[in-house]
């Protein structure tokens, strides 16, 4: 890699310094008693429509999105655009399901999905399965955020050689993240999310306006994209081919999104179910940006950054994930590279903080309190969560420093398959108590095992070619295994109900809990 880009680095460090201060100062924002878990871990459920907008946006559009979606467009082409149908599908889900979930969680004091399932279905083992799934799916996601930081730090010419010095910038970023999360809880990412969004918007729009001008217009850009990348491959007569994969990737990813603990943490910290509904109506503003971001991958193809000698080392180290940083270095002046990279770096800290808080809430409430110490004081509970948030982040850091990045990406893929298996209990549970709790647990277990097996068989790629008769239906594994899970739950519910001499566990929620 070339030498250090001092101008970019200075801008980057100044912006990072600012959000560090902001993260600590956030402890006093809408002040609450941080020795209570719902204050530390949900910001006291006091965020109005605007802050929730930034917070959920911070969850959705992470540094990794910013890097990986264009990287997919750069490497694989049109299929990367599935991110657009995906963002169109998520808002009806948010609109229909989550105001109800917010209401019941607020009335009953739940702070995690697992809390809700425990109360709704009265089965601690089902609740444990939900909590474990959330924890395991979140960890590689945090690690991927650190990859985002790693890529931009590397692109500024810092590090590069191996060893402790190379990892030092990442470790510093990690310490900052860990410290302000510990001291301010969810208030820290909520306040930083505002800065992050402003920076990301500036960067995205600059890229979409400046780059096409420099490259001579969209027609020229798209003519530089190889024909086989420009559109989805038209399927043959006996398969749904790329079409089915495209649609099921969008559906599966959309259904999985709000099941992730960090999404739920953002949702539950809103001040009302109403604020969530309003957000479902105004958040699509973000989706447009995601589409624009995907186009940046094509800009990188057109700019020919993949062939420029000064970026060869970066591509070698980070693969296609280097496409966006390389493009920015190629077309922007150094000071703006600093802004753009800070947007990505800060865009990693926000979701990483929310994720670690969400994981901490899960462990503290649904594992420690349920199985280890049944009667903690408020203070003990909040303290435990703070420690767990540190441990979770430390785990992610160690993972990134010592395990090849590819593993984190593959684990995150599996995470999507795992988390979607909690859909029947969480999302459908919001609407009905019809399901048998053990049927839900069996559906979850079979879906998880089948999904993992299918993914492993396919060498950890997201789609599986389902063969029925002479036809092949390639589709997102998470989607197929969710269908399997649902079928099992529906079939087994009457069976288990008929077998069970024991009475159905009580539902501690009542119908009125689900409304404002």
């Amino acid at each position: 890699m070339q030498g250090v880009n001092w101008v970019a680095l200075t801008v980057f460090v100044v912006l990072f310094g600012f959000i560090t201060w902001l993260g600590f100062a956030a402890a006093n924002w809408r002040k609450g008693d941080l020795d209570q878990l719902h204050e530390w871990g949900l910001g006291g459920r006091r965020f109005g429509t605007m802050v929730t907008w930034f917070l959920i946006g911070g969850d959705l559009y992470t540094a990794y999105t910013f890097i990986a979606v264009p990287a997919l467009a750069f490497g694989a082409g049109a299929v990367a655009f599935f991110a657009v149908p995906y963002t169109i599908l998520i808002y009806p889900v948010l609109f229909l399901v989550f105001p109800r979930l917010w209401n019941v969680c607020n009335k009953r004091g739940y702070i995690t999905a697992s809390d809700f399932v425990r109360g709704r279905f009265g089965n601690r083992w089902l609740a444990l399965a939900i909590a474990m799934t959330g924890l395991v799916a979140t960890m590689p996601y945090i690690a991927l955020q650190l990859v985002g930081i790693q890529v931009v730090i590397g692109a500024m010419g810092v590090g590069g050689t191996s060893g402790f010095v190379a990892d030092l910038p990442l470790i510093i970023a990690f310490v900052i993240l860990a410290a302000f999360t510990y001291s301010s809880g969810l208030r820290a990412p909520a306040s930083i999310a505002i800065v992050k969004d402003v920076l990301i918007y500036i960067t995205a729009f600059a890229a979409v306006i400046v780059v096409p001008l420099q490259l001579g217009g969209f027609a020229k850009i798209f003519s530089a994209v190889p024909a086989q990348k420009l559109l989805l491959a038209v399927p043959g007569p006996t398969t749904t081919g790329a079409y089915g994969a495209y649609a099921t990737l969008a559906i599966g990813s959309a259904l999985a999104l709000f099941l992730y603990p960090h999404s739920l943490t953002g949702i539950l910290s809103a001040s009302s179910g109403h604020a969530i509904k309003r957000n479902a109506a105004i958040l699509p503003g973000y989706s447009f940006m995601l589409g624009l971001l995907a186009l940046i991958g094509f800009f990188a193809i057109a700019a020919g950054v993949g062939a420029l000698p000064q970026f060869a080392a970066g591509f070698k180290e980070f693969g296609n994930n280097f496409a966006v940083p390389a493009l920015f270095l190629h077309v922007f002046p150094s000071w703006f590279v600093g802004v753009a990279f800070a947007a990505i770096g800060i865009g990693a800290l926000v979701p990483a903080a929310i994720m670690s808080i969400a994981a901490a809430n899960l462990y503290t409430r649904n594992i420690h309190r349920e199985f280890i110490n049944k009667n903690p004081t408020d203070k003990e509970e909040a303290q435990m969560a703070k420690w767990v948030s540190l441990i979770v982040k430390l785990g992610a850091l160690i993972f990134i420093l010592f395990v090849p990045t590819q593993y984190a990406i593959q684990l995150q893929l599996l995470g999507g398959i795992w988390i979607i298996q909690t859909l029947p209990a969480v999302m459908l549970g919001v609407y009905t108590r019809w399901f048998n709790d053990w049927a839900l647990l069996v559906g979850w277990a079979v879906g998880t095992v089948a999904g993992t097996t299918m993914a492993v068989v396919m060498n950890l790629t997201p789609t599986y070619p389902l063969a029925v008769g002479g036809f092949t239906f390639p589709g997102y594994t998470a989607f197929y295994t969710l269908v399997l899970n649902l079928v099992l739950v529906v079939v087994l519910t009457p069976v288990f109900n008929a077998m069970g001499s024991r009475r159905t566990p009580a539902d501690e929620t009542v119908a009125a809990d689900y409304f404002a």
Partner: protein
Amino acid sequence: MADTQRKRGGWSWWYLLFVLQCALVLWPPFYNRAEPAFYGIPFFYWYQLLAVLIAAVLTAAVYFATED
């Protein structure tokens, strides 16, 4: 009180607009082509970006129609 609760929790025909917005993008054969291009952007791309804007308008419509 009980009446407004029932009204808020119930089904609304406006939700069918959600089905419409999903249908716009879930059938790739419909938009998987390059022509007609728009300012040099192939149909595949500008159509889906347009669908985002349509979806935003439809979601807002459902919001205003179902809130009191």
